[in-house]
């Protein structure tokens, strides 16, 4: 399930400064004497959090067979899809630190938007739920089965983003916090254990590292990415998994055609519940809202639908709805045996890439011409 895809970091070689190496080594060594480390990587966006976390992952893998990875960045997730928070158990080194690769998660939650600001409470609920899951399943150190955990955080470190980070750190109480700092001081997080009220440091290790790439004047060079394109790219790679790998799908058009032709899964709609994560949709309009959108396929299993952290097995495209026959048609790479428990569709605001809908002979009705998006200017 490994797919290489350059994520736009450019062709610049990955530089791992000695300070990064030291930091990673330090964290990895820690587990020799104490329980495996739980390391949170934080810092402003584009500072190199991802690169460091990948490097740390590789370093840890030289000591541990498996390493846990909790991804809380819903905008630019490390191994899974936008809008999702996920726990991965990784047993394979990442060969190219620059590239993004899709890995199926050990457990996943669908938050449904690319920024936590849409629903901070739900977001925190997901983080807590997944962290608890990891502790319960993979951190039983009395049974000598404990795995180290790397936690990747979003680069939103001001305002609500900061508040959320503080909440997260308080709940997790990690063994190591790695702050990636950049030269523009005011964009950085406060120094020290900013989430604690001064006292109990305990076994906490604080590590500051500096952004790897700097220019002539020692100013950090941030790697800017086009977030929207990147997200579409990930969805592209994900839905490509619906097809055998020998099927030649290179362009959006190839995929769009393949998706339109693919025999979808069908399920009685009456069996499913639908939850709109960030919008109120009148009951009478549910189908209008769902048709041709991306949804999270979740397992409700008796929980009240209002609770957080329904396990999500993956994303799907609602490709058609047949009300008369009580059928909903879904395209998803999730294997059919994993689908059987799915009884909840989560609709968020993860927009379907237009590239999926636009192909000769199979143009989706949701693509229209002559759409007015600019207002006429009377003057000028």
């Amino acid at each position, binding site marked *: 399930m490994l797919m290489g895809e350059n994520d736009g970091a450019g062709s610049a070689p990955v530089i791992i400064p000695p300070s990064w190496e030291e930091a990673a080594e330090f964290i990895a060594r820690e587990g020799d004497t104490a329980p495996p480390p739980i390391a949170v990587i934080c810092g402003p966006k584009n500072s190199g959090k991802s690169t460091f976390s990948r490097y740390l992952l590789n370093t840890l893998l030289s000591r541990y067979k498996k390493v846990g990875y909790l991804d809380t960045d819903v905008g630019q997730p490390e191994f899974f899809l936008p809008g999702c928070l996920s726990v991965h158990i990784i047993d394979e080194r990442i060969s190219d630190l620059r590239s993004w690769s899709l890995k199926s998660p050990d457990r996943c939650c669908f938050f449904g938007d690319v920024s936590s600001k849409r629903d901070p409470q739900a977001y925190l609920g997901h983080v807590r739920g997944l962290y608890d899951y990891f502790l319960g399943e993979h951190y039983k150190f009395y049974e000598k089965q404990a795995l180290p955990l790397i936690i990747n955080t979003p680069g939103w470190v001001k305002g609500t983003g900061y508040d959320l980070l503080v909440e997260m750190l308080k709940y997790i109480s990690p063994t190591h916090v790695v702050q990636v700092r950049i030269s523009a001081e005011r964009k950085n997080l406060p120094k020290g254990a900013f989430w604690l009220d001064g006292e109990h440091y305990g076994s906490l290790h604080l590590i500051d590292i500096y952004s790897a790439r700097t220019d002539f004047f020692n100013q950090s060079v941030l790697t800017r990415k086009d977030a929207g394109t990147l997200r579409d790219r990930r969805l592209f790679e994900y839905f490509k998994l619906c097809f055998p790998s020998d099927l030649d799908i290179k362009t959006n058009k190839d995929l769009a055609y393949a998706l339109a032709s693919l025999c979808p899964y069908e399920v009685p709609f009456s069996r499913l519940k639908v939850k709109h994560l960030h919008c109120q949709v009148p009951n009478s309009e549910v189908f209008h809202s769902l048709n041709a959108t991306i949804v999270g396929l979740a397992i409700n299993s008796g929980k009240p639908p209002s609770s957080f952290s329904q396990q999500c097995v993956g994303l799907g495209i609602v490709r058609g709805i047949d009300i*008369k026959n009580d059928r909903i048609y879904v395209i998803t790479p999730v294997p059919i045996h994993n689908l059987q428990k799915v009884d909840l569709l989560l609709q968020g605001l993860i927009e379907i890439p237009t590239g999926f809908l636009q192909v000769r002979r199979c143009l989706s009705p949701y693509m229209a011409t*002559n759409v007015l998006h600019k207002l006429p200017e009377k003057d000028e």
Partner: protein
Amino acid sequence: MMEDMVMIGLRNEFMAGYKLVPWSTWGQWNFVRESIFSSNPESVAAALRKVAAWRSRGCLPVAIDVTAVILEIQCQDPFFREGLLDSALSSEELLAMLYCMAIVRLVNVFVEPLHKKTRRSISELAEAIGLPRALIDIRHESSHRDLPSLQLVRLASVKALDWLKSNYWEPQRKAIPDVRKEIRCRLREMIHYLKAKYTQRMKAKRAKRSHQLRACGKLSSQVTGKILSSKAIDFNKRISKISISVCRVYSAYPLDVVSVLMEFFQLHVSDFSDITDKEITEETDVCHEPLINSMSLLKTIITKLSHNRPRLLLSMLKIVLEMIKDIHEKGQDHFLSPLSEAKVCQIKHLCSFVPWLLMNLKTLKDSGRIGLTEELKPSAGRDAVQKVSLKKLLRLCLSLSAVGDKHLSESVLLLSDLSGNTNLTERLKKLPLPCLQDQDAAEYSCSNIESVILQEELAIKKATEKLQYLKLQSRISNVKSMGTEDQDNDVAKNSWILAKSWIPCPIGMLPCSFSSTSVIPVLDKADDDCQGTIIPENNHDKFGKDHTPRENHKINIQSPDTENAIKKLRLTTEERLYSIDVINPMEGRLLIDGVWKKVDEAEFFAIQSNIRTFVQ
């Protein structure tokens, strides 16, 4: 001018200009436009509900968003909605705040991007886009000073709506591409050239003839001949060019092309004088004529188009059959009053069209341009020749042959022939298809009374045999349906399964099982509680596994006049063998003494024995 724009839009259809929108048809957009500004609170509420659904899809144009927000606030304001005092907000402060927020958003959404780009002041930019000054002031005051009064912002909300109307809703309404108009225009063009070509050929023929007669002026006739032939090539070129462009439009809007073609067909049908394929007269003036004056012309067009897009034939078939079904079903709703003359005529015409379409389909199949199979297997790959399932088409044709048109029965046989299943063809031939009966009727009309009686006896015997057969079949099916199927059904009904068959169709649409015309599904819930209203699935999907019927066979025997009920016994039952999708209101009923009565199996057998006594 407008039309030019549309043309350009369509010609560059896959270059650019396509945007993701939350509505699946412009009709839906129009519905919202009309109802959102309506004075009827219920219409407004319906429009707001639709906008809420659009909002959840994520690609809602801001103008719609803001319009909906303002209207939603107005719905809470007793000033605008006197009747709805219960749900109204009583706090003026809250209302004022809501209005202010909406206006702030409106101004920011439309002015801020320009402001960032040009660095000109907000008020300057607002003036440039015609945004009322009052709105700008309210934005400023509510952000930096005291909250403006409710009276002020309420008035401003009306102004804001007016501005949105004239700057978004109206211009967008005018900009909606009219695909059908465009298609009509191109088809008209095509007809024009086809006619011109025909006229020219006639002229050329006549020139040749006169040339032969006179056998002189060799040089001049050679010249004219050359000119004519060069022109002819030109016409052909144009025709094929237009047909390619229509095909391209067909790829994007199959439904529209097909229904415009049907429009032409209807136009032709409504003209009674033109029933036979009349040849085009030479001196006709194209511009002042009806769109099409010959069936053959329409057929030429369809043949040309289907050469490039073989599935067009299936789309046409689908629409024709659906129309027949529609008219027929409407007639059945009040079955005692017969269909009107015009309707009968229309059905007749539609029916006669079916075999022709099928013959064409056969030609295409034989030339390998389209694959036809009895059963469609889902496949993930892309096939060069798309395969089409004939099963459902056949089933629909069969069910419609109850209409009693021989063309349709002919089509059924044609279809089974196409599917290549000889077994099926044999079985179908056993069926009392109306075409066979018509022959019977024709025979005894011209013979004496004795032979009539003989004929009748024969017919009754045949009917008895068929009834016997039916009885047997229904028993078998009863036994079978009690078996394993229910369990199968339960499991299948409640789990995720791979769809049983699939035809490539755009995301957001559903495939039609026997043509390439995908349909936009109806997404309106009939009732708030959908589970309650869902029509139980008929198990036609199961049909493909074997050909034995599994439903209870209720017998449907129709008779046009009760006195001779037995003589003209017409069985339309065997079609149930193929578990037809059509729900027949006459099912299980017999016309006895002018009244349709429900007949159970026992009564049915009683009737059967009566028939026997009659024969003896």
